[in-house]
């Protein structure tokens, strides 16, 4: 008889489940709050960045020459909800050694780049959909 009572669901288990559900609900609301303060922002943005890159030129495939180097730049834009409009100016310097007609040479590839970008915050969109979905599900359960 003792062994059966161990597996029987007790009142305290129900209380625990209620506590977990309450915790999850609070957590979801907290995420939703964070999203409402950050994802629904409409604010200006400035950015600086630096990195490394490589340049592939079809005409240099035979010599297997791939200039590599650094790039840095700055950008400004505006973030609105789940997307961001961005204007970027960057400078890149790529170099590579190449042998041509038996002579060693160096290719210096300098570039100044201006780009217009539209960034999407995919993870935020995913979390938002997930939270909204769970909220809707929660409301349906309450209605039932």
């Amino acid at each position, binding site marked *: 008889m003792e062994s059966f009572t161990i597996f029987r669901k007790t009142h305290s288990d129900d209380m625990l489940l209620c506590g977990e559900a309450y915790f999850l609900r609070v957590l979801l609301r907290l995420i939703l709050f964070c999203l409402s*303060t*950050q994802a629904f*922002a409409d*604010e*200006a*943005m*400035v*950015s*600086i*960045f*630096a*990195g*490394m*890159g*490589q*340049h*592939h*030129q*079809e*005409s*240099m495939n035979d010599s297997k020459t791939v200039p590599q180097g650094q*790039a840095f730049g700055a950008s400004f834009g505006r*973030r609105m909800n789940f997307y961001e409009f961005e204007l970027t100016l960057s400078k*890149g310097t790529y170099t590579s050694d*190449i042998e*041509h*007609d038996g*002579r060693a*040479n*160096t*290719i*210096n*590839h*300098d*570039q*100044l780049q201006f*780009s217009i*970008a539209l*960034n999407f915050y995919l993870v935020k969109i995913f979390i938002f959909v997930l939270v909204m979905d769970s909220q809707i599900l929660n409301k349906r359960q309450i209605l039932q």
Partner: protein
Amino acid sequence: MSGASGAGLEEEYGLVKDKITGLVLGGGYAILQTSSIQVYVQFEHHVMSEISSSQNLATAGIRFYY
């Protein structure tokens, strides 16, 4: 875009000063995000079909929101 090389390489490898238009595709991840600062890493692939070339670029940066 500009290119400089040894004698005779300009014609053969197409390394001339040029102004071209291309397409950039990429993705990134925000390592640190607060209401006013975002630290991110990003990977970009540049396609410049006019000169039959492409570029890969990996960057790290910081964004300030105000």
